[in-house]
């Protein structure tokens, strides 16, 4: 089932490329799976609906012949869906995103063939789709045995990423890691920061393709979370999990391919043989990945070095200050220091100064222009968008 959904979206995206749809075009995508009990068996139906600017130019009437041509390749295991989805579901969708431009349904006749793991795959696929098409609000609804499971793939923070000789991407860079409690409000970057990688040509092993292809390549992108991370230190800071997402964007061009069906078939084929292609270019891909990881981790490593600098300097600052306070015979000075920190003796003063110095020097967040330090509330049209590059 997930494969069929992928094929539908592949078709829509290819059509979008042909029409020059802008990447930041917004809209909604609804994937609705529901069961219907028939005479003999319970069928599993799937509807893919799209509305909004991202589907601009798609007309179902003109799409139907295309779908007919592609039926075998797109839906080998499915049949046309005689049922219609719940109009209320579609109304709710169109209320949010405008009139439907895309509505495609297909059916698996015997739902007993449906494997529960497919739901997980569908969910994973839609999550990935949402990550790189952050302008499109994606919903998944499952209605099985009168139970509804609904998931909306929400994008809090988007980032537009320019690509050389390619349309720009709109990535979901929302950070899902919660800051430790000791981090002050506004001192935590809520989003990731895409880094453009390099392009490298890939050779396709002969056995992977039915015919010759030229100009295959991959671009490596990494998106990293910029939140400050501390490894365990003497000052006992909690460690923070960071996420590094690596995107591999494949571009294939073939002067002999002009039909949509050819493009779809080629893409599917490349996807199918992806592992083989990457293995065939192991060294180049490994080098590219290592380079991108090194670049992505530069900031993190720099941050670690800075933390170590701050930590070791803090020890000297503390010991020097306490040495002077302890040696001093000036009662006024000593009392002023102790009362300032609300402690009784130099031992407590040392502990108190240490804690305070740790607080003011730890979790230093130096926002850059492209950071997202403020809490984002989910509201339509309110998502912060960063512009990279």
């Amino acid at each position, binding site marked *: 089932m997930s494969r069929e959904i992928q094929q539908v979206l592949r078709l829509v995206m290819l059509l979008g490329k042909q029409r020059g749809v802008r990447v930041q075009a917004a809209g909604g995508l609804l994937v609705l799976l529901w069961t219907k009990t028939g005479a003999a068996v319970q069928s599993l139906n799937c509807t893919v609906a799209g509305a909004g600017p991202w589907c601009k130019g798609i007309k179902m009437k003109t799409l139907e012949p295309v779908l007919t041509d592609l039926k075998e390749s797109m839906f080998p295991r499915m049949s046309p869906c005689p049922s219609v989805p719940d109009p209320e579901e579609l109304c709710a969708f169109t209320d949010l995103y405008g009139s439907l431009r895309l509505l495609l349904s297909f059916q698996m006749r015997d739902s007993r063939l449906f494997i529960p793991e497919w739901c997980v795959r569908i969910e994973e696929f839609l999550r990935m789709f949402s990550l790189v098409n952050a302008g499109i609000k994606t919903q998944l609804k499952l209605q099985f045995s009168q139970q509804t499971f609904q998931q909306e793939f929400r994008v809090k923070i988007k980032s537009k990423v320019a690509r050389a000789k390619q349309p720009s991407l709109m990535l979901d860079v929302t950070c899902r890691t919660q800051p430790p409690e000791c981090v002050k409000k506004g001192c935590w970057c809520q989003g990731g920061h895409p880094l453009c990688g390099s392009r490298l040509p890939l050779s396709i092993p002969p056995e992977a393709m039915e015919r010759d292809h030229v100009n295959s390549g991959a671009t490596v992108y990494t998106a990293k979370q910029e939140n400050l991370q501390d490894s365990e230190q003497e000052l006992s800071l909690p460690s923070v999990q960071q996420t590094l997402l690596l995107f591999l964007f494949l571009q294939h061009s073939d002067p002999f391919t002009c039909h949509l069906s050819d493009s779809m078939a080629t893409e599917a084929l490349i996807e199918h043989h992806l592992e083989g292609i990457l293995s065939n270019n192991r060294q180049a891909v490994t080098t590219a990945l290592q380079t991108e990881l090194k670049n992505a981790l530069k900031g993190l490593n720099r941050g670690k070095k800075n933390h170590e600098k701050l930590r070791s300097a803090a020890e000297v600052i503390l010991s020097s200050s306490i040495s002077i306070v302890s040696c001093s015979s000036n009662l006024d000075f000593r009392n002023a220091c102790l009362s300032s920190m609300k402690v009784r003796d130099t031992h407590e003063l040392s502990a108190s100064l240490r804690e*305070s110095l740790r607080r003011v020097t730890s979790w230093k967040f130096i926002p850059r222009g492209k950071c997202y330090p403020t809490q984002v509330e989910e509201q339509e049209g309110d998502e912060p968008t960063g512009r990279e590059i």
Partner: protein
Amino acid sequence: MGSDVAELFPEIEKLRVQLLHNVEVTADFRRVEEEISHQEVLTRIENIILGIVTSLSKDEAPVLTLPNRSSWANVSFDSAIGLQMSSGSDVTAVRSDCASSVTKFAQILKILSVIYRLVQSNSYATKRDIYYNNTQLFGSQNTVDHIVDDISCMLKVPRRSLHVLATSKGLISGDLCYMEEDGTRIDCRSNSAAVAVSPNIGGIRNIVSSAKFVLIVEKDATFQRLLDDDFCSKLSPCIIITAKGVPDVNSRLMVRKLWDTLHIPIFALVDADPHGIEIMCIYKYGSVAMSFEAHSLTVPSVMWLGLLPSDLRRLRVPEDALIPLTKTDENKLNSLLQRPYLSSQPDWQKEMELMQQSKVKAEIQSLAAIAPDFLTSIYLPNKLRYGGWI
């Protein structure tokens, strides 16, 4: 020789009388160096620490404020003092919460704690001792040297009051005896060997000298030549001193001490090149970096004895002993001509413009091309006899 300089060199005597007169006239305006008490030094350090503790009590990162000692914008010129730091000068903030400055912050605190203990116990340490006690923290001797001067400027306390001594570069010889702080008697009258300038000028007392003038010598090579030629006996009584190039603080303090105690003419013998002129200006007017201590370091009465650019022409120094000015020399010369103190020294200005026009420089050693002992037998005695200084 050994005859009294006053009889043979009446010009020097005239100058000495004139200088004495100026000193008496301006005595009311001379700033007497304040002695900073031990307790005052400790209190100033404690104020710094209290500021740090107060910041931390408010959960604010402590910041130290250092006057900027490297900017010409922060100095002004006073003909009676030289280059001095302006009030309200630019400052640099050294933050404790920033990776790029936290190490310096820690270094300053460390040295402050060392100084505190030295002053409290009335003991002394050299800058070298401080460096070697924590080489990992400081990284280099230069770092310690700079920070000690920064602290001196920040606390407005002379370095000697911080009980941090520097190893002196300078050498001194001539008609001079004094006692060090620890009671050691120093006699600089040896004909063959010079005495190292004391690391603790502030502790020198019981200065005894009949010298009629002091000769500051730029280079060690020239100084050794004067020693070898028994200059101090020939032109007795006099004192010669060198800091072997750009003068360290102790050498400058020694020259200043000699001036304050003896009020005798102080002449400079430097190469006829921009570098030598700049060295002479440091003795006379001070440096930007130490402008905060100008009152105790400068000797505005220093006279330029030689080697003058006009001497090269007058004495017909052989051309092969002359060196063309480099681009760096020209830039340095231009920079010197822009200095605020040059306007009060028209004769110096003329000499420097002559160097600019001739585009050549020369070392004192170039006089040896005229005759091997020309410097000590002819040049210096004539200069001193006929008032050839500016």
